[in-house]
């Protein structure tokens, strides 16, 4: 028994050495490239090519039909001097990101903790809470337009039961963005599932040790659970921030075909870009806008990565 265990690494080492020197390795490598070739082609055609075109296009007055003259930084200058809507759109987008991302993240974590209790029938609850996350598209937006309708909607009816006079969600400019955030909260179960999986990976022995020391459930949550799931929180924060910056469809459908809602309160950055690109065909300008958003997102992501070591806790030292 013992001899086999000792010999095993030697065998594999020898085997690997032999393999490395053979021409079989080269053939194997070629096949590897063959297998990932679709991705490489797709990457060049759908990603790298368009990115390069867009980078050049953002310095032109491209309008898809007739013009593509190099105009230097004019598009970027125009953003600062001649387009007040872009600042409003940036403000609207930031508002949405800053409110919705922390709310949905905290909501998803709390929900996951609730659904991680050992109670009978938990599977049914998990299914119910996850359901809204699979629903998307125009049908859902229409549903919420009805739910949020001030006169006949469910939300204000329920608020009325507890004595609150609900706002005119989708027609009052100061409430439209909150209405969208409210709608997003419905599908918080999507993030929940991610946290649930990671909660179940937290070693039970940590809790047992804490219990021996007399820790309350409050302390256990903040000193064991939360630190252990910080990698997933970090991943969720980064991806949902990127997602939230790109909000478009909701605003497009829930206002009159992208007119930006009452008092332009639903003009998000991408909605403005869409209108520039496909309504007035100022595509050079739209491409310049997309790069501005890209850089904002990139800076934020890098910032997130930089401060991550201060609060994200990884088991084991060799993690990046």
């Amino acid at each position, binding site marked *: 028994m013992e001899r086999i265990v000792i010999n095993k690494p030697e065998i594999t080492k020898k085997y690997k050495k032999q393999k490395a020197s053979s021409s079989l390795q080269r053939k194997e490598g070629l096949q590897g490239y063959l297998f990932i070739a*679709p991705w490489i082609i797709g990457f060049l*055609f759908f990603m790298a090519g368009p990115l390069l075109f867009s980078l050049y296009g953002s310095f032109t007055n491209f309008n898809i039909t007739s013009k593509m003259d190099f105009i230097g930084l004019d598009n970027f200058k125009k953003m600062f001097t001649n387009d007040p809507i872009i600042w409003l759109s940036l403000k609207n987008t930031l508002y949405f990101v800053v409110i919705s991302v922390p709310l949905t993240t905290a909501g998803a974590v709390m929900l996951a903790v609730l659904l991680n209790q050992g109670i009978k029938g938990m599977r049914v609850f998990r*299914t119910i809470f996850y359901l809204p996350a699979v629903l998307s598209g125009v049908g859902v937006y229409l549903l919420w337009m*009805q739910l949020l309708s001030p006169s006949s909607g469910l939300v204000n009816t329920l608020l009325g039961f507890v004595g609150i006079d609900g706002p005119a969600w989708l027609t009052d400019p100061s409430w439209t963005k909150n209405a969208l955030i409210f709608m997003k909260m419905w599908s918080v179960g999507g993030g929940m599932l991610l946290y649930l999986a990671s909660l179940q990976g937290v070693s039970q022995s940590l809790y047992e040790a804490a219990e021996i020391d007399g820790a309350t459930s409050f302390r256990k949550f903040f000193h064991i659970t939360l630190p252990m799931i910080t990698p997933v929180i970090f991943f969720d924060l980064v991806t949902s921030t990127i997602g939230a910056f790109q909000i478009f469809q909701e605003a497009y459908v829930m206002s009159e075909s992208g007119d930006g809602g009452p008092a332009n309160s639903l003009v998000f950055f991408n909605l403005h870009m869409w209108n520039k690109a496909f309504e007035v065909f100022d595509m050079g300008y739209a491409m310049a806008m997309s790069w501005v958003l890209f850089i904002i997102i990139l800076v934020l992501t890098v910032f997130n990565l930089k401060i991550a070591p201060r609060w994200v806790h990884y088991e084991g030292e060799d993690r990046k």
Partner: protein
Amino acid sequence: MSAAAQTKENYFKSANFKKKTGQTIVLIVLILGSLLILSPIWWMIATSLKDMKEIMTYPPTFIPKEWHWENYLITLQKGPFLQYTLNTLFITVFVVIGNVVANSFIAYGFAKIHFKGRNVLFACVLATMMIPGFVTLVPQYVIYAKLGWLNTYLPLILPAFFGSAFNIFLLRQFFLTIPNELIEAAKIDGANHLYIWWKIFIPLAKPAIATVAIFSFNGAWNDFLGPLLYINDESLYTLQLGLQIFKGQNDTQWNFLMAGSLMVLLPVITIFFFFQRYFIEGMNLTAGSKG
């Protein structure tokens, strides 16, 4: 000694008691939460069966007084929904096939074949997830326009055959759990990678493949942005576009709008209830590799 034992017993009693009350509170919160989560869907069903008079009465009714099933027939007659459904199905079928075949093929390469630069390329795959889709939106549109593919389904279907980062990642994670000995054994029997991928890995990875198929189905079925951008001809409209047009034509006719929405959402809800474990498994694969 006996006093200490007694306090100890009390302590356990109270801890047990605390646990029970805690669980009851959690249960009540979960039941109330579930009702809140499900109420919009019930509201959609109820509204779709009311007439406009009842919808506008105050206070609103939670159960329709009269059940107007004919609302559904009227809704179906208000637009070419059958055509929209067939169009959407056509796109969806190809997108699902493309995603399953291409992503498993690519993922096999990344998981089970050694080649130079594999890790760097895989990092590139993951990095593409961080690129906001809107940066490539306009240039992609321009490319498709120059190719003469506007108003066809090609821009909606073709990209599915070249893999997507998330699905490649998910399937690679699953493939990594399949032992290499299986490949070695098959190779001794004279099989090549193509055969091993198709005949061994795809059947073994059924749960992960199902996850990719279901996510792709949902993605294609619910896609609004793609059709909005590329499809102009009304005979080529998908359900999402049809519903958007329908919204414009039936302003605040909530019963018809809800009936239409419900019919469009029904396949997704049905699939979710039948195959929910695949959603959960897919998420576990993603989270497990980050936790």
